[in-house]
């Protein structure tokens, strides 16, 4: 989810996104004059349509953090947070954000971000969010409204859960926004915004699913983070997003027609040699270098879970204007990290089949327990259920200290070579068998154990 598009080739959709984001930040920088209210909130389970219905401007601290990392500023921010007492062990998004605030709160466009008038604590799928806004509350001394999204512990959304959500939205979030803006809630407006959301959502799903083609016209992980950007942040429910996704979809179709692969910062992908699923968020400090490791090997990511953190639209969810608050509640509860581990596994296994993937690569980030705790089990179960190989790498989101390029490259290479070895297994094993029996001339010094 980034705003910076560093690809060598610039397609119209890229420019369009860039402009949308630039405009958003311009607006943020003008709140002094426009007196528009600013609400900080999180990406997973965000209530963008509701915020827009009140004409407030959302700011997403995670996005600021990842952009700081892409601009190589995260190191200093994290250092500052650690200086004021934050532990090395905790989520670096939080530290990056706190550090950024302490060092002047300069946003990605170089302008100072406005302070929040309200913190909308959409506590969805991640415990750290709660601590994060408790910290920000201390920093800004501003009101917080809690929206507790119950977790799908049993893999389902129960009526009690939905009722809890709807009541929180109706009785707490909406009154807080009314109080903040002095406007009363306009349900019709919300419905209209949600109608637009659903349209853009259709196109976005089509884009993500275009990866089912061979070769895939998109990279659903590295490229994917750009594609989900507008949908997951401040633009869902806007005409801009509708246009953007329509354009993006056209471009995908063109590439499919031309038999072209994804566009990467290194240019158009070479021949697609591997089709992978990736689980876990990317590393942002070495984003381009990381992507290049895939690009160089002809590895294309055809499906990823990270592109579902802000909603699992590909599983069929659409914002539903006929039932706006229930629909918002369902949306929040359906986000990827709000699903339990068996559900996450089912999703990945389904992807393996639907996207004819060669295997699953997990990028386990140190920061994020929400994602990472249990990933080793996902890996094992994935292998067991699909018979496809899994690979595992460890990095971090925005802390460059935890990105060891040599190590990551080694593991990716080993993983891909393993896939190749598996593919070519049949032919080669014959001559190997002949060689092997001879090589056993190496003496065995120890052979114990079972009879």
């Amino acid at each position, binding site marked *: 989810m980034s705003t910076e598009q560093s690809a060598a080739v610039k397609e119209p959709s890229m420019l369009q996104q860039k402009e949308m984001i630039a405009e958003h930040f311009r607006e943020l920088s003008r709140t002094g004059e426009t007196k528009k209210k600013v609400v900080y909130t999180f990406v997973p389970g965000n209530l963008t349509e509701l915020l827009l219905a009140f004409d407030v401007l959302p700011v997403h601290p995670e996005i600021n953090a990842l952009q700081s990392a892409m601009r190589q500023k995260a190191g200093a921010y994290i250092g500052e947070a650690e200086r004021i007492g934050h532990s090395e062990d905790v989520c670096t998004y939080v530290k990056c954000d706190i550090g950024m605030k302490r060092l002047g709160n300069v946003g990605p466009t170089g302008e100072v971000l406005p302070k929040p008038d309200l913190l909308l604590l959409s506590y969805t799928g991640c415990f750290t969010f709660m601590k994060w806004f408790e910290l920000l509350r201390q920093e800004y001394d501003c009101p917080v409204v809690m929206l507790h999204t*119950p977790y799908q*512990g049993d893999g389902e959304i129960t009526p009690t859960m939905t009722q809890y959500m709807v009541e929180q939205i109706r009785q707490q979030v909406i009154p807080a926004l009314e109080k903040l803006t002095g406007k009363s809630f306009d349900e019709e407006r919300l419905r209209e915004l949600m109608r637009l959301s659903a349209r853009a959502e259709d196109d976005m799903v089509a884009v993500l699913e275009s990866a089912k083609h061979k070769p895939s016209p998109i990279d659903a992980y590295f490229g994917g983070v750009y594609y989900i950007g507008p949908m997951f942040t401040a633009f869902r429910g806007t005409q801009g997003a509708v246009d953007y996704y329509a354009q993006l979809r056209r471009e995908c179709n063109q590439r499919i027609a031309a038999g072209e692969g994804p566009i990467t910062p290194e240019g158009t992908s070479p021949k697609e040699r591997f089709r992978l699923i990736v689980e876990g968020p990317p590393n942002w400090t070495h984003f381009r270098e990381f992507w290049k490791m895939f690009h160089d090997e002809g590895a294309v990511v055809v499906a990823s879970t990270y592109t579902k953190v802000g909603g699992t639209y590909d599983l069929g969810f659409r914002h539903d204007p006929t039932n706006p608050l229930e629909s918002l509640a369902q949306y929040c509860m359906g986000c990827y990290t709000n699903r339990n581990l068996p559900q996450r596994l089912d999703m990945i296994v389904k992807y393996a089949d639907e996207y004819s993937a060669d295997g699953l690569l997990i990028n386990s980030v140190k920061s994020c327990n*929400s994602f990472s705790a249990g990933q080793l089990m996902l890996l094992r179960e994935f292998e067991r259920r699909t018979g496809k190989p899994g690979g595992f790498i460890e990095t971090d989101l925005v802390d460059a200290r935890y990105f060891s390029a040599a190590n990551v490259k080694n593991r990716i290479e080993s993983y891909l070579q393993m896939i190749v070895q598996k593919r070519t297994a049949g032919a080669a094993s014959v001559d190997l068998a002949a060689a092997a029996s001879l090589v056993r001339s190496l003496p065995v010094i120890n052979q114990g154990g079972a009879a």
Partner: protein
Amino acid sequence: MDSVDQYVARADALYHDVSYRSVAEWKTRTGKKAAGHLPVYAPREIIDAAGMLPVAMHGAGDQVEIIRGDAYFQSYICQLPRSTIELAMSGRLDDIDAFLFPSTCDVIRNLSGMWKMLFPKKFVRYLDLPQNFDRKVAGRFWAGELRHLYADLCALNGTTPSDDALRLSLARFSANRRAVASLMALRASEPWRAPAAEAYLIIRAGDVMPVEEHTAFIEGYLAAAQGADRPMRDYTRVVVTGAFCEQPPLELIRTLERAGCYLVWDDFTVGARFLEGDVSLAGDPIEALAQAFLNQSVKNACVYEPDGKKGEWLVNTVRDTRADGVVFAAPSFCDPALLEQPMLVTALERAGIPHTSFKYAENLGQFQVIREQAGTFSDGLRLWSNA
């Protein structure tokens, strides 16, 4: 009356019983089932009222070698879930029939999903404690969840749900909390009478003892400890916080005291005293328990603090226990505890209360560094006091 040593020996044996043999014995004796729960807070009253033995699972300390557990967790995840899995994979949790995973943090949350996949035959429930503290909205949600849990546990155990059973349990646990509070009060007033590690073991015994038995056990220990002849030392008085989930090794608790710190308050096993005071016996017992959580729970990093007065509670604890300073002891990689710390530090500094911090793991074996830090902290308070 038993001697202090006898109480401690019994508690120590239970602490070291990582195979939960005492639970198996209880089950044989009663023919009922046992429900385990992870830290921090779980509504143990509900388990008890369903006729099951509530078992608080606090990892395996330094008592088992972690082999299979490491297979499930990366190096940057705390120790507790590994040792819990290790216990399960080595059959030591076979006697536990139901597992409850409270919403303490994402690690425990995800562990619930892993449990579903690993042990499909066991009863597994994730408990989403309300983080919204609105009495009405959250009260309805939480009472609903509790009711659902109660019905399911009763069905599992073959008992009939009843308000009377619930009320009886509420009363038993209130009594237990009063006993625990007396022990804590003794630690705060005359810490040399009940050394920290000892008091810890006595409270931990409640992890596996039926609640009424544990209440009597604490009372017995208190009577014995009050009579024991133990010298008072020139130690610093500290509050320890951060250790509410993964538990510090016993040796660490001893190290702190040996380095010159009396632990006059701590949040070890704080789950056992998460609610403060008695739960009302009037009206619907489930409602009462739900409201008690919303209105009577302690402040802890694993729950959201709606009133925005972060740290005030800790400052008051320091004042109430006449402590000289605060030791932050948190498990490595524990997000709730570690993210909370800077906010608490801010409050302490505002109140002029000295503090120090370090991290540990439940299976830590070397204490030099911690001893140095705690020692320097107490040296500072000791050498610079005017006594």
